[in-house]
């Protein structure tokens, strides 16, 4: 029940809804005790022969008004209590989203998106249940149970109440025991199901092996065995599951039997009227739900607590990149100077960058090359301040980058990432991502610079074509060029192309590069690439290997050095020859 304490802040926030809702629930529980009472009174009137039209009409009017009031109140508390629970889910969901936008890349390296999604869906659902059905069950079973008991004992007969309730504890004990066994068997059934799932997964992944050995039949047989196991485990669940209803109706039957037998005795003795006896049995029926509700309540609360703990742990994750006090809010311009002694990713032991020192003048183009894993992207991520914990400094426009606000720093940088991610939106919205209010001309200009305008005009809906996961599928090259246009639209002080030309052919690459040269005069550009042709014309080329700078200079200087750069250049020339079938 501690989850109710943990959620108390919300109950307080919504105290009007909850207090009114609970009050209504209590009124409802009280009103529910009226119809059985009326039944008894009417029966007694009939029995005694005192039933007059006016009496009947009066009591029927009472019943009808109870029915109407109950209908309204039941509707009302649902809006109040279930409505608040939905509100809680909405509030937590927004909080989670806002929190996610503050988390840095290292958070996303640690967590899997699927898990984060599960927290935002399943866990919130369980919490919503706790704040809705949980509260309802708690209040309703307590109030209805005690009201009915009180009415039975105080207005009819406490003796008969005790006698007929004797078997009820057996029901409580039995159902809670079933619950425990059911839970165990259910887990086993789930295990069997998930191993069946694995089995199918394996068959699909290994389909070539199975087909090449011709083992289709045998695999179906092995599937049959496993799925029959699932049936067996589920039948075991069913065998316990099916115990609930018969047990309940058996105990209730015995309870009725006791009530009628002993009640009849009391009727004969004149201690009870026959109408009261009928009311009494109807009350017994009303008691079944509160008895069962408690078991159910524990279940809901248990799940809610686990889920809420997980969500809280997630919300407690700290932001890793902290802004300096009085940070500069104007976006930086000017030279970029790297002076890094060492950088190691969190949770890794080997440094990813060591002794990186170079200076890039404003307006120059920097080319970074090296093998996969040499540290090219890492170098860029530090400039974007995705990671902070390095020894040394990076200066941009005369200040260390940590002296700017994150917003100011990133406003100066247009980044085209390696994995070109597009949102499920129109091409226009994707290009204008950083500046939603951009004009049509701006969007088209950026698209033309990125050499994608022609492709876009070929799409059925032009700039209104939906792309991304749920839109038309684009080639890798098209995605890359839209990503480039997205960054260019910002007209950024620094443009970073992180291996962003890998999927376009040599001619398009050349066209984009020369367009950039023309349009970005006086602005800084950083390009990382596998293909050396992309950086060949850079003012400064840095060759990385194992996180260190192994060569640095212009293309001509590096070609003269006859080192890694030279070998790679020759090799790539030959490679493109082979790709073209050996002829030039």
């Amino acid at each position, binding site marked *: 029940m501690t989850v109710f304490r943990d959620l108390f802040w919300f109950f307080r926030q919504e105290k009007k809804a909850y207090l009114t809702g609970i009050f209504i629930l209590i009124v409802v529980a009280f009103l529910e005790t009226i119809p059985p009472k009326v*039944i008894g009174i009417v029966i007694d009137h009939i029995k005694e022969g005192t039933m007059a039209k006016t009496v009947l009409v009066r009591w029927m009017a009472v*019943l009808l008004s109870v*029915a109407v009031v109950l209908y309204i109140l039941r509707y009302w508390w649902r809006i109040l209590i279930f409505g608040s629970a*939905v509100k809680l889910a909405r509030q937590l969901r927004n909080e989670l989203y806002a929190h996610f936008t503050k988390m840095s890349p290292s958070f996303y390296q640690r967590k899997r998106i699927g898990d984060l999604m599960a927290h935002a869906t399943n866990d919130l659902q369980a919490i919503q249940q706790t704040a809705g059905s949980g509260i309802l069950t708690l209040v309703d079973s307590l109030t209805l149970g005690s009201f009915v008991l009180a009415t039975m004992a105080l207005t009819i007969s406490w003796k008969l109440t005790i006698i007929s309730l004797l078997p009820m504890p057996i029901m409580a004990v039995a159902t809670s025991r079933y619950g425990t066994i059911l839970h165990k068997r259910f887990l086993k059934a789930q295990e069997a199901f998930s191993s069946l799932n694995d089995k199918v997964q394996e068959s699909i*992944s290994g389909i070539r092996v199975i087909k090449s050995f011709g083992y289709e039949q*045998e695999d*179906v047989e092995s599937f049959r065995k496993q799925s029959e196991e699932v049936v067996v485990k589920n039948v075991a669940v069913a065998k316990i599951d099916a115990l609930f*209803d*018969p047990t309940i109706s058996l105990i209730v039957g015995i309870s009725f039997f006791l009530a009628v037998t002993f009640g009849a005795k009391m009727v004969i003795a004149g201690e009870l009227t026959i109408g009261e006896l*009928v009311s009494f049995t109807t009350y017994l029926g009303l008691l079944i739900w509160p008895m069962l509700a408690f078991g159910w309540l524990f279940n809901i609360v248990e799940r809610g607590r686990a889920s809420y703990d997980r969500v809280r742990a997630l919300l407690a994750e700290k932001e890793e990149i902290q802004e300096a006090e009085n940070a500069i809010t104007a976006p930086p311009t000017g030279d970029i100077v790297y002076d890094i002694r060492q950088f190691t990713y969190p949770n890794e032991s080997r440094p990813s960058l060591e002794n990186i020192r170079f200076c890039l003048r404003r307006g120059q183009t920097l080319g970074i090359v090296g093998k996969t894993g040499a540290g090219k992207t890492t170098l860029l991520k530090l400039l974007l301040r995705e990671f902070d914990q390095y020894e040394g400094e990076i200066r941009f426009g005369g200040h260390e980058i940590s002296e700017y606000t994150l917003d100011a720093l990133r406003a100066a940088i247009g980044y085209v990432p390696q994995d070109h991610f597009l949102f499920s939106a129109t091409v226009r919205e994707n290009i204008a991502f950083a500046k939603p209010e951009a004009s049509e001309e701006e969007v088209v200009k950026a698209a033309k610079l990125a050499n994608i305008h022609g492709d876009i005009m070929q799409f059925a809906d032009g700039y209104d074509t939906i792309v991304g996961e749920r839109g038309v599928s684009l080639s890798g090259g098209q995605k890359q060029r839209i990503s480039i246009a997205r960054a260019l639209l910002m007209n950024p002080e620094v443009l970073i192309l992180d291996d962003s030309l890998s999927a376009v052919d040599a001619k398009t690459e050349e066209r984009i590069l020369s367009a950039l040269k023309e349009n970005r005069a006086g602005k800084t550009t950083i390009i990382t690439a596998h293909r050396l042709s992309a950086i060949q014309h850079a003012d400064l080329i840095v060759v990385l290997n194992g996180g260190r700078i192994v060569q640095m200079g212009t293309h001509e200087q590096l070609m003269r050095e006859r080192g890694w750069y030279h070998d790679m250049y020759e090799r790539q020339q030959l490679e493109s020859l082979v790709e073209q079938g050996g002829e030039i």
Partner: protein
Amino acid sequence: MNDKPLTPKEQRQVLWRLLAYMRRYRKDTALAFALLVLATAGELVGPYLVKIFIDDYLTPRRLDFAPLLWLAAIYTAVLVLKTVISYFQLVKFQKLALEVIQALRMDVFTKVHQLGMSYFDRTPGGSIVSRVTNDTEAIKDMFISVLAAFIQNGVFVIGVFIAMFSLNVRLALYCLFILPVIIWIMKLYRHYSSIFYKDMRERLSELNAKLNESLQGMAIIQVFRQQKRLYQEFAQINDKHYAAGMKNIKIDGLLLRPAIDFVYIASIIVVLSFFGISAQESPVEIGVLYAFVNYLERFFEPVTQMMMRLSLYQQAIVSGARVFALLDHEELAPQNAETSKAVIQEGKIEFRDVSFSYDGKHDVLKHISFVVKPGETVALVGHTGSGKSSIINLLMRFYEFDRGDILIDGISIRDYSREELRKHIGLVLQDPFLFYGTIKDNIRMYNHSLTDEQIVKAARYVQADTFIEKLPDKYDHQVVERGATFSSGQRQLVSFARTIAANPKILVLDEATANIDTETEGAIQEALAKMRKGRTTIAIAHRLSTIQDADQILVLHRGEIVERGTHQELLAQKGLYYKMYLLQNGLVDAQEYV
């Protein structure tokens, strides 16, 4: 697989097709029904007995011991019997549902194995798995909690009315008013809740899609400083979802339990008025009144239950439609002459002017012709997309071809039975796949005629035994996570052993040495050389060094064989092969070599 909304007609078709599965279990269904009717009857007899007690004994104060004892005995006996029967009835219905799903699952899985490779290329593995397991599970939930509940509650409702009619025809007629009212409420509820429920599910999936996309693109969002804007967008969808949720709560509040409870009290008013009015004319039987009140009390809970489960039904129908779409899929694996007695003797392979296209538009193989003599090795080399793998895909009958022919020992591979082909062609893949089970299981696969000695022998032959012997349980070592604890080379050695244990005449190596760690490389090379001995071999090689001793090397470019010959001949040609060789071996030593 797109989820278009199903028309009511399609929904009904899916439901009937699902129900048709119950036909296979006619006997069980009949038995379950019989038990259900008995249990329901037992349920209804209780109040009837109390009615007899009240009217015949209690009211007239005729309290003879013997008949009362009888009455009590009958009541208890019925109670106990009914409890037992209803237990078996419940179990029977659930078992029935589970068996129906089992049959459906077997059908789906069997079907999956009949589909051609092209289907697997296009369909994400996860969605196929979903069809076999999750979708059938959703249908199971429907069978258990919707269908069974509908049948059980339906029978109960009918039973209640039979009992009421036998007590008092006129009053029972009055009570019939309940049925149209309930049906009207149900229809109304079904109509609105299906709209609102669908709306909420759509908002939810929109919400999840937005969240998922934001999480995937978070780096972009942050770099372009759009956190606030996207938060606003998310909050908007969240508000819509909240509004949809509130609508659902309202519709549930208006038409579900509160409404049904209202009808309950209304029906009590009818019964009481009836007795109240008739009491003024003639004496009435209190026991009958008791029984009516009691029946009505039990009547309404099942009705609410039935209504609450309607949404499960909707989901099951959607799942059912997906499952049937897979079952009706016609992209079958290539067919073979299964009754053919043709036997592979020597293992001579011939490609005769084979052209092939995956999509019917672009040919990936153009007029491919070559012969591999028994026991010889042919290597296929070429750039990515040159058509090497397609040649193997056709030879393995993963895809059907329509132009040219592929012959083994002079007979078209279509004219061998599938079993004959599988028995004599062994394929080794680039990424060796290990299954759940022991090392031994992985070598034996489903070939149960293999003895343990033969398995050890096969492992020793490919030198897999050196690392297997070092494992804690040796050949009984459990493979976990598809062999992730082994190196790629070790996994490849196991798959070699698997192929060698089957002792094929023809060996097909699909880049079998591409992902090998340096540690096991030596062992792999030796094993390959041994395996190839005496077997016709077609090898795709990424590293040219591994196929230098091939009897013939075919160089492919854009679906055509552009060069062919031995290693030395091809180097001498100074063509594409020569350049590829230079690329792999460094410029200097290659030039020295030639």
